[in-house]
C-alpha cells in the first residue's frame, strides 16, 4: 500500500485510470439512469417519483463515502505522513460536497410529492445537511493551510486532517438516524447482504451506484493530478527564483 504513496508511481497509474474510470462510469451511469427513467417500473404507492431513487441513492452513497475517504486519508496523513494522503483528502472534498448537495436537492424534489413537504427537520435530512457543512468547513481549512504554505504534517494541514477524522462521527449518525429517531424518511432498503427491494428496482439502482462511483473516482484522480501538477510547478518556479538552489519537489514524471 505504501508503494502507491509514491507520487511518480501514482501519476503513472492515474494517467491510465482517469479516462478508464470516466468512460466506464459515464456509460454505466447514463445507461442505468436511462433504464430507471424508461424501463424500470413505477412504484405501486409512489408512482413515477420513485425514479428519483436512481439519482438520490448514488449521490447519498457518494456524499457519505466521500467523507469516509477523507477520514481514511486524514488518518493515514496523521499516522504515516503519506505524501499523497493529504492530497487525496483535499481532492475528495469538492466532489463529496457536490454529491451531498445533489442528494439534498434530489431528496427535496422527491419529498415534495411523496411527503407533501420540501424539507423536514428530521434526523436523516438534518444529519445530511450537517455533512454538507462539514465539507464546507474542511474545504475552508484545507484552503487556509494551502495559503499558509502548509505541507503534509505541518500545523495547518494537520488541523484539516484532524477535522476530517473527527467529522467522521457524523457518518454512523446519518446511517442510523432513521432507526434511532422517528422519521418521514424510509429505513435502509439495502443492508449488508440483503435487500428489501424488488430486483426490478435494485438492479438499475446498483448499476447507477457503480457508474456514479466510477465517475466520482475519475474526478478525484483529476483533482489529485491537478494538485500534484500545481505543487510541482510551484517547486520548480521557486527553485528557479532561488537561482537553481535545490529544494523539495514532489517527484512526478521524468
Amino acid at each position, binding site marked *: 500500500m505504501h508503494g502507491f504513496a509514491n507520487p511518480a508511481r501514482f501519476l503513472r497509474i492515474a494517467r491510465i485510470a482517469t479516462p478508464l474510470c470516466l468512460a466506464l462510469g459515464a456509460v454505466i451511469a447514463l445507461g442505468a439512469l436511462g433504464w430507471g427513467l424508461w424501463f424500470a417500473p413505477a412504484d405501486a404507492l409512489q408512482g413515477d417519483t420513485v425514479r428519483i431513487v436512481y439519482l438520490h441513492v448514488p449521490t447519498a452513497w457518494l456524499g457519505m463515502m466521500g467523507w469516509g475517504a477523507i477520514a481514511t486519508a486524514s488518518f493515514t496523513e496523521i499516522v504515516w505522513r503519506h505524501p499523497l494522503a493529504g492530497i487525496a483528502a483535499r481532492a475528495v472534498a469538492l466532489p463529496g460536497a457536490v454529491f451531498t448537495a445533489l442528494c439534498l436537492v434530489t431528496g427535496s424534489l422527491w419529498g415534495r410529492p411523496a411527503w407533501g413537504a420540501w424539507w423536514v427537520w428530521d434526523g436523516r435530512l438534518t444529519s445530511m445537511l450537517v455533512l454538507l457543512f462539514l465539507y464546507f468547513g474542511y474545504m475552508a481549512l484545507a484552503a487556509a493551510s494551502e495559503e499558509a504554505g502548509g505541507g503534509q504534517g505541518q500545523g495547518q494541514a494537520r488541523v484539516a486532517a484532524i477535522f476530517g477524522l473527527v467529522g467522521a462521527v457524523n457518518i454512523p449518525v446519518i446511517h442510523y438516524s432513521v432507526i434511532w429517531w422517528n422519521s418521514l424518511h424510509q429505513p435502509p432498503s439495502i443492508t449488508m447482504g440483503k435487500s428489501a427491494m424488488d430486483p426490478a428496482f435494485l438492479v438499475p439502482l446498483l448499476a447507477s451506484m457503480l457508474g456514479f462511483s466510477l*465517475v466520482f473516482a475519475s*474526478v478525484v484522480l483529476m483533482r489529485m493530478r491537478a494538485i500534484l501538477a500545481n505543487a510541482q510547478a510551484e517547486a520548480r518556479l521557486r527553485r528557479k527564483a532561488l537561482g537553481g538552489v535545490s529544494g523539495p519537489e514532489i517527484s512526478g514524471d521524468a
Partner: protein
Amino acid sequence: MREAFDQWQFVIAAYVLGVGVSIALVAGSWLAMRRAEKRRDKARGK
C-alpha cells in the same frame, strides 16, 4: 383539498440537475487538471 402533482416534473427536474451538475463537475475538474499540467510542463521548460 389535495394538491395534484405532475410527478414527471419532479423526476425530470431531479435528472436534469443531477446529470447537469455531474457533467459540470467532471468538466471543471478536467479543465483544472489540464491547466495545472500545462503550467507544470511550462515551468519545466517542456
